[in-house]
């Protein structure tokens, strides 16, 4: 009998980042929150930030941030994460501070807090997850819900006459002087994931360089509340969502203008 053949693995192509906790995820199949968590953890590791990071969790499906990312985390009231993060960063300017917020959290109840944090140029990074619905509370209309999209509170589809239009936060925030970096990314293909990671790295670099507020908006899925299979949800992101919410970098500060 010949000796068993050893398969030579020279390179691990998929590993768990140090800052990602090794637990089972509570997210639904096909949900992008988990992918986005991993990207955040990878970028924390990339700059060796784990031991100097304070994360700010929102209210929404991502409220359990502290179960997944291996850093100190404070929980903010719904929408108030940028204000809580402001309080953390003003008290500890040498620490790395990020918020992780849903679209109901950031673009509805917390609009005031994100706009003023950005306008002050708070030196924070914001991870913004746009899944066009309120995932945690059962799929109600969000400010980002697409026209015609049926949700539990727009059972006949969102109509601009009564419900207004889906709001493009990345563009809106890019218009503020205090915003250092604003981009919209998606994670529906491997290429998009790589690009998204680059954007998060850029956002973190902005904070490390003291440039002001950086925000990365993720087009994300909520198969559960969209009533779609995971693969169809990916298609929706790549199709109608990306059409209305174009991917790209809307603002990138080159050097600190308040140094």
């Amino acid at each position, binding site marked *: 009998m010949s000796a068993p053949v050893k398969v030579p693995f020279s390179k691990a192509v998929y590993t768990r980042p140090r800052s990602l906790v090794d637990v089972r995820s509570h997210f639904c199949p096909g949900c992008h929150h988990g992918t986005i968590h991993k990207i955040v953890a990878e970028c924390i590791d990339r700059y060796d930030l784990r*031991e100097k*990071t*304070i994360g700010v969790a929102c209210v929404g499906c991502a409220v359990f941030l502290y179960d997944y990312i291996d850093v100190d985390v404070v929980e903010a009231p719904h929408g108030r994460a940028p204000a809580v993060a402001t309080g953390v960063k*003003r008290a500890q300017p040498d620490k790395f501070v990020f918020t992780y917020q849903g679209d109901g959290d950031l673009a509805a109840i917390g609009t005031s807090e994100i706009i003023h944090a950005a306008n002050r140029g708070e030196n924070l990074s914001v991870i913004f997850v746009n899944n066009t619905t309120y995932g945690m509370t059962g799929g109600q209309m969000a400010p980002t819900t697409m026209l015609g999209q049926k949700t539990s509170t727009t059972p006949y589809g969102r109509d601009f006459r009564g419900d207004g239009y889906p709001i493009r936060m990345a563009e809106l925030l890019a218009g503020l002087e205090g915003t250092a970096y604003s981009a919209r990314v998606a994670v529906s293909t491997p290429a998009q994931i790589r690009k998204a990671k680059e954007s998060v790295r850029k956002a973190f670099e902005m904070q490390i360089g003291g440039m002001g507020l950086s925000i990365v908006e993720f087009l994300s899925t909520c198969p559960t509340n969209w009533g779609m299979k995971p693969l169809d949800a990916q298609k929706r992101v790549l199709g109608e969502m990306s059409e209305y919410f174009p991917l790209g970098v809307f603002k990138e500060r080159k050097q600190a203008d308040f140094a």
Partner: protein
Amino acid sequence: MSTPASSPSTRILTKGNEAICLGAVAAGCRHYYGYPITPQNDIPEYMAAHLPALGGTFLQAESEVATINFILGTSASGKRVMTSSSGPGISLMQEGLSYMAGSELPAVIVNISRSGPGLGGIAPSQGDYFQAVKGGGHGGYRLIVLAPHSVQEMYTLTMLAFDLADKYRTPAMILGDAIVGQMKEPFVASPYDPSSTAEKPWALTGCAGRERQNLKSLHLKDNAIEVHNWKLHEKYERIRNEEARAESYMLDGATIAIVAFGTAARVSKTAIQWARKEGIAVGMLRPITLFPFPGREVFELARKVDVLLVIEMNTGQMVEDVRQCTPLHDRIAFLGKPCAMPTPEEILERIRTLAGRKG
């Protein structure tokens, strides 16, 4: 503007609101956030002028909703932090205060209260008593509430508020009003005693050299929220047992005892002196802590006197707590003056009536 004098016994002439700032700075508070509202604007103005030079941070927020969340973040960082406002702004802070109580985060909140409800008016008032002492926000919690009645106490009780907030890991409120806030009188800037400063191993400073930690108020698993509620309840019981404070003023041989706090108590002192000169045996029990309420003192006092005269600058709020502390309800009288300071003459008049005297 005055800064604390070098000699601990020097008397400085200062406004109440400024004494709060001096007390906060003396107690090591270097972070202040707020949003303008009358009648407390001298507090943020003082902090804006003085904190930067002390290496601290003043930040004007876009709203009181943002303010209280700045406070939450700085408190979670383990730093002493303060804000001040008045009725409408304090209402906007209730969400954040509930989260802070739930997350067990200390801070000092100053309410230089004004008239309400709604936009009300800027006249001094004690109409925020219920909001302050019963919790104010959702879910069932208490704030530690201190009620200064002089510029001196605006200073010393602010220092105490920081110590108590840290000791019990809970927000503490200074409940003042436009009169104690705006009045000027000499006070002694006694040095801060740091001996009761609490350690904060729970602070979020990055997880270098330890496991990650979190600060949160959400408890979904099993019966964690029930356990958490009992834990908070136990803490509030400890505060009730150990921290109630009251001043007994000329109560020797008194048959009439006023119960009043803050400005109403201050005015009552004058009326009591006048009445004593007329030979009327009147004194006062002045709650310094409104939560915890000095219930035992009220209970004992009610048994000794003929009348407990509760005086408030509202239509009757603390009087409900007084009633809870004694079964002798027929001994309780009430003088209310919503949205205005009662005059010593008015109070004297009522004392005379209760004593069966004609003026």
